[in-house]
């Protein structure tokens, strides 16, 4: 018998059956022999949510049925799907413990448990006004409750608020603001509403060129912007946000993005940073502590946007790296932090931004150099259609791990850095 045949079947355990975990299971099942590797995916339930769809729910533009599918139907044959909550990873002992007491030993572990909004982390957020005048749209229940509140809203101060960075889909609160502005206009209510955007950042967005551009779009829509606002608590009696430096922002309707945090088991397992994100090498996503643990998607601490597009591009790089890693070779792929985000801007238009660790969002065309068809950093109807088409692509191409004709590493062809003039205009 040769060496490989004698060796027992090895276990790959993937924690989280969301965007990243599902793509990884699909891609690796095709690349790993079943006689050599068991693959197990763990998630706490069997409901896969298309989270980008939440954005449209408050405005009645997306029904819950379009947003939720069963997880197991996206996993291929030959992958075990375990429903259970992860309680802890014993990284020294190479075993995952579930809350119901089950144990899953592993040879290689992928943590893909994402990030979750945590309203409990800001005093007063979960108080009397939660889901009365305080809402989030980062959960389906929140987005549905907000739809109901908006349908009854007839004027006053509508405040859109980010608690702290990083958050997943960092453009979503801006998109919500643009959509709210257009929606209010459509209902003839815009004149009776003061729209306020409150952010801990020093501008509308994190990347300077896009920040200036998107900030200009807020100005055009007469949205008041309050920057450098670090919320300390919410005064739910007086209905206002209070910052650490004692600024107060009153609201009639507050749409907040609560603090986003990685899963608590990550902290309990001693694998996380102060926000429960797993510290990894930013190019290979291998844990900095254990050489058989990777963290992919929102769960890691890489300095890239927490977005489905980033999860997708990084999975492409990860899969080849993983095969080298288990064969005992050096990993040769290096993820560059590529992010590609549609930004809905209202009135059936959207813009598209494309950037990575080192490059600012660019102007130009995407994905095909010169012809596009999608325009970067410009509001167009085609971009909006692109965003809507994405839901179909997500369920039918991305999750099943089918090849997507988009390059994982960022390409500079057809793009050019925003010129000084565009920067000033922005």
């Amino acid at each position, binding site marked *: 018998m040769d060496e490989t045949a004698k060796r027992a079947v090895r276990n790959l355990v993937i924690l989280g059956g969301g965007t990243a975990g599902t793509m990884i299971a699909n891609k690796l099942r095709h690349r790993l022999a079943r006689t050599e590797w068991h693959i197990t995916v763990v998630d706490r339930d069997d409901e896969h949510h298309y989270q980008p769809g939440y954005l449209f729910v408050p405005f009645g533009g997306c029904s819950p049925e379009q947003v939720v599918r069963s997880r197991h139907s996206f996993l291929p044959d030959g992958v075990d799907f375990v429903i259970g909550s992860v309680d802890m990873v014993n990284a020294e002992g190479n075993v995952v413990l579930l809350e119901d007491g089950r144990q899953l030993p592993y040879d290689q572990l992928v943590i893909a448990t994402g990030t979750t909004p945590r309203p409990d982390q800001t005093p007063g957020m979960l108080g009397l006004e939660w889901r009365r005048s305080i809402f989030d749209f980062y959960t389906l229940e929140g987005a549905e409750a907000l739809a109901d509140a908006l349908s009854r809203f007839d004027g006053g101060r509508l405040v859109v608020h980010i608690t702290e*960075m990083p958050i997943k889909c960092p453009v979503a609160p801006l998109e919500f603001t643009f959509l709210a502005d257009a929606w209010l206009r459509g209902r003839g209510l815009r004149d009776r509403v003061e729209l306020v955007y409150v952010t801990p950042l020093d501008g509308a967005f994190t990347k300077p060129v896009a920040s200036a551009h998107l900030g200009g779009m807020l100005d055009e829509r007469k949205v008041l912007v309050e920057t*450098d606002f670090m919320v300390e608590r919410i005064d739910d009696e007086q209905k206002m946000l209070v910052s*650490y430096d004692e600024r107060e922002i009153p609201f009639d309707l507050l749409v907040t993005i609560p603090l986003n945090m990685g899963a608590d088991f990550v902290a309990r397992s001693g694998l996380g940073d102060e926000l429960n994100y797993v510290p990894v090498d930013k190019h290979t996503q291998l844990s900095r502590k254990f050489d058989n643990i990777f963290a992919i998607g929102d769960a890691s601490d890489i*300095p890239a946007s927490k977005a489905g597009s980033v999860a997708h591009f990084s999975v492409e790089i990860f899969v080849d790296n993983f095969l080298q890693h288990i064969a005992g070779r050096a990993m040769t792929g290096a993820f560059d932090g590529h992010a590609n985000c549609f930004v809905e801007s209202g009135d059936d238009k959207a813009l598209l931004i494309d950037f990575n660790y080192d490059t600012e969002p660019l102007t130009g065309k995407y994905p095909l150099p010169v012809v596009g068809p999608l325009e970067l950093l410009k509001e167009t109807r085609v971009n909006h259609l692109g965003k809507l088409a994405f839901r179909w692509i997500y369920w039918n191409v991305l999750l099943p791990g089918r090849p997507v004709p988009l390059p994982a590493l960022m390409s500079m062809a057809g793009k050019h850095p925003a010129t000084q003039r565009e920067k000033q205009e922005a």
Partner: protein
Amino acid sequence: MPTTTIGGHEIHVNDEGFMTEYDEWTEDLGQALAAQIGVEMSDEHWQAIQFLRRDYPDQGETATLRRVSTVGGIPTKQLFVLFPKKPAKKMAYIAGLPKPRGCV
């Protein structure tokens, strides 16, 4: 990278004035940088700056306010008192570290 002279020391800085060479920093320089932005250093200020200096080589990036409070043990509220208005940026400036990333 441009250089500038602060408190008699020639240092490398970026276009926003943040130091770019970890090893060029000294406490003297920290004192001078603080003076530039109107911060008068007390023991408590130094405690925060020293945490940032210790944390950086290990983490490869400048600690966020949350990290200074949860790992460094100085409450966020107090950081706003010590370094009014923009504590994260001011601390990084004084500690001779890159501006904390805007968090992508």
